């Protein structure tokens, strides 16, 4: 049914696309691109045992990008009339006319908007609101029933549908229909030592079928348990400690430790510690890192990137050796290579840049139980929060939202929250055990230069010889 609903009607009439791009070249552009976006979103917030808010939003607009040499002009508008788009094209071209290049049009593919295969079984918008509320209420009930210490529960449901169309004067003309569905539940538990929190989130590039595989009540019980467990948590250690990261819980480590540093825009400006290191050993042998936008229903999956190029599986580190960076159109043009499908933007108001999609470390061959048993003392991180990296130095932090002490090869007491800090290049070399239990983690939003895009990450259970744990205990 969804295939029929996800029509291939272009967001902007092809005659108007043609006229707009011609206007950009006529005004002095060397190359021009039209990016059109139509985004619908809806959400329900369930807090304090009731539906607090139901919301919905709609956005339509176009961004016109014009380049001449190294200069890029960009204009965005929500006025989708032919005249509005022509005005935007001339505005975008204005900065480029400082050095007019006289571009040529290859519009041979303009009549064939390639719509990616639909991957959505049931559009969330086709489901009645009462069913969404029922899931939230079930989560609230489950969390509150899970433990008497649970004092507050927030459950959120969100859906989005983003239709995009990209056409440029080098013959790209493609469209995609991206549907994502998200469910999260957060609990507060209250005890003698104060308040603690636990959260669980699932989100995939799928429709309502998300709930065929994920039971909100089970997620709520896990979130509740996480909060309650932390009531008894002791302060985390302070200083360098061996750290075991549970499968799926720590992909953000690689997103921060090296993912951003492998983005070609940062590499090109010398703002990455990985600049000039292709072919060198940058990670322990056995460690392979992949960015894969084609990866099934994962949160960062896309059929095409926001420059109209198909996403693909890109191996970045192979058995410890740096093999490639990630590329958008602009940076790959300068290097005379094809884009890797990593040109993304938050919305039609933004310029695209190099971004990750689903970034993960592939399996090793060790039983995860053996990794823990082989650790005399350390920290076991079951669940990581967000992170941040300084790409110039490679120093990165990430939050541990659920962690435990490892003593004599056994997971023991829960630890309070904190950040871990490490240096990306060093941490990659310090991975001394890689499990065989690969899993993807929770959906994330990656922020870069003020733009947020959905990303996925994953890894098998692994151990880093030493990371600095930002706790308060001696």
């Amino acid at each position, binding site marked *: 049914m969804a295939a029929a609903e996800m029509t291939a009607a272009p967001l902007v009439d092809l005659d108007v696309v043609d006229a707009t791009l011609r206007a950009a070249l006529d005004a002095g552009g060397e190359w021009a691109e039209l990016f059109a976006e139509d985004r619908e979103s809806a959400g329900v917030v369930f807090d304090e045992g009731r539906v607090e808010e139901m919301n919905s939003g709609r956005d339509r607009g176009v961004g016109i990008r014009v380049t001449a040499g190294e200069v890029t002009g960009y204009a965005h508008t929500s006025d989708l009339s032919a005249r509005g788009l022509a005005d935007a094209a001339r505005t975008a071209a204005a900065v480029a006319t400082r050095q007019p290049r006289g571009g040529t049009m290859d519009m041979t593919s303009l009549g064939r908007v390639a719509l990616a295969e639909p991957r959505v079984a049931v559009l969330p918008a086709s489901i009645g609101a009462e069913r969404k509320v029922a899931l939230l209420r079930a989560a609230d009930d489950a969390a509150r029933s899970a433990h008497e210490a649970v004092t507050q529960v927030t459950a959120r449901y969100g859906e989005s549908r983003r239709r995009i169309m990209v056409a440029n004067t080098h013959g790209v003309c493609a469209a995609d229909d991206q549907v994502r569905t998200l469910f999260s539940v957060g609990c507060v538990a209250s005890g003698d030592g104060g*308040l603690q929190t636990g959260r669980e989130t699932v989100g995939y590039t799928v429709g309502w079928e998300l709930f065929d595989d994920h039971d909100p009540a089970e997620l709520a019980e896990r979130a509740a348990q996480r909060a309650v467990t932390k009531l008894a948590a002791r302060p985390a250690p302070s200083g360098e400690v061996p750290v075991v990261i549970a499968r799926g819980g720590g992909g953000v480590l690689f997103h921060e430790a090296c993912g951003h540093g492998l983005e070609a825009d940062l590499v090109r400006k010398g703002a990455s510690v990985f600049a000039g290191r292709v072919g060198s050993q940058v990670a322990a042998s056995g460690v392979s890192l992949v960015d894969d936008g084609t990866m099934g229903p994962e949160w960062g999956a896309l059929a095409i990137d926001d420059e109209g190029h198909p996403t693909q599986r890109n191996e970045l580190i192979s058995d410890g050796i740096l093999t490639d960076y990630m590329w958008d159109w602009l940076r790959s043009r300068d290097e005379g290579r094809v884009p890797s499908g990593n040109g993304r933007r938050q919305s039609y108001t933004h310029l695209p840049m190099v971004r990750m999609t689903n970034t993960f470390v592939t399996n090793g061959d060790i039983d995860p139980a053996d990794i823990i048993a082989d650790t005399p003392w350390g920290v076991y991180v079951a669940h990581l929060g967000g992170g941040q990296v300084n790409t110039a130095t490679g120093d990165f932090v990430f939050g541990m939202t659920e962690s435990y002490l490892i003593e004599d090869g056994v997971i023991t007491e829960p630890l309070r929250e904190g950040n871990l800090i490490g240096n990306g290049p060093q941490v990659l070399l310090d991975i001394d055990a890689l499990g065989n239990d690969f899993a993807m983690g929770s959906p994330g939003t990656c922020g870069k230069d003020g733009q947020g895009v959905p990303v996925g990450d994953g890894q098998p259970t692994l151990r880093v010889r030493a990371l600095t744990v930002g706790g308060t205990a001696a």
Partner: protein
Amino acid sequence: MSERRQYDTDELAQLARQVCEHAQGSEQIEVCVSTGRSTTVRAYRGDVESLRSGHSAAIGVRVISHGRQGFASAGSLDADVVADTLAAARSNVKFGEPDPHQALAEPDDVAPPGLDLSDPAVLSVPDADKIAAAIDLERRCLSADPRISGVRVAAWSDGWSQSALASSTGICVQSEHGSCSVGAQPLATDGDETQIGYAGDAARRPDELDIDRVVAESTSQATGQLGATKPPSERVTVVLAPPVAAAFIGVVASVLAADSVLKGRSPFADRVGEQIADERLHVVDDPTDPTTLGAANFDGEGLAARRNELISAGVLSGFLHNAYTARRSDTVSTGSAVRGTRSVPGVGTHAPVVATGNIAADKLYASVGDGVLVRGVSGLHSGVNPTSGDFSVGAWGHRIAGGQLAEPFREATIASTLQRMLLGICGIGATAEPLAGGMSMPPLVIADVALSGV
């Protein structure tokens, strides 16, 4: 898809009022509409890297009926979109669940501060001047120190926005304002080592931008970190440099918002009137000071913005309220509703200010003896839990030894809890240093914080 219409703020207010007039019976409608335009220029290697500009429009409609709330928004003011948005908000309200305190703000008798914030100076800056400003910023960073090897970002941005908010309870306010900003991320290199700095400024008028400070701060951050090493783990006295102090106070202010208090998510619930911080600490939220970009005549529900005391001599004065949290707490709104056009009003600060203390700038390090100066933090979103108060962030800066600023450190964390850090404040600088957007902040000295490194 009609062609774009230009609105002035009177017309926006009229549009918002017209939608509110659709309210039927006991239904309440609140409409926020806005238009804006913006330009961002980035320079690289002495030329324009990119120039991005655009127009935007938005509407947010909130409907409350019998204590149920629905909200819808859209990125256009076309007549059909406006009608669809009202219909969507009404549809959404059907699934809300009643809360007896849920209602729109009613006009109160508090007069707005009457600030003139609509300086049109940014509107008259030609693109060529914006380009020149970005290129000049890059050039000045490069020439500030021979170790500056490049500038990842040198940018100019400006924007102008007009908005109106009306409600069926009789509120109708409008505003118009512009701003401009610059930001730089210079790289410093020494051998194989590269460090990056960042600084920016924002102002209502181009001639109020402090470019000298942006160049000096961003380049000294980058060069100052060259040679930095990982420090030993120990409990130390930390000096939070003004930008870090501002981030810390921002976190503290967020847990003093009544919505997190009412929902049992604030560690400071039930503590009004109690000593929650050292007696040297005084914090107010002051949107009535027109010199800051946080200045406002109205809050996000159209009530007068006002000065609110949060912490006085270390004692918690009270919480910040919007209309909903006030009604639920049997008090009045503090004019602290914060929102974008496209979201329902939350509760937050406009422009938090910390009163200066008595440590002269030239005595700051001597007053500490041994400790660390934290010039920057990372992971504020991942390492601070505003419900439990656990605080652990990545930190970099300089060591303080024998009362003097000493070698730089990096790859470390500082950790404590918000509760302990507030009580652990043991000094506040006598001089508030300028921050972006006309804000200023003195350095804060906090004792007994865990520094984690080697």
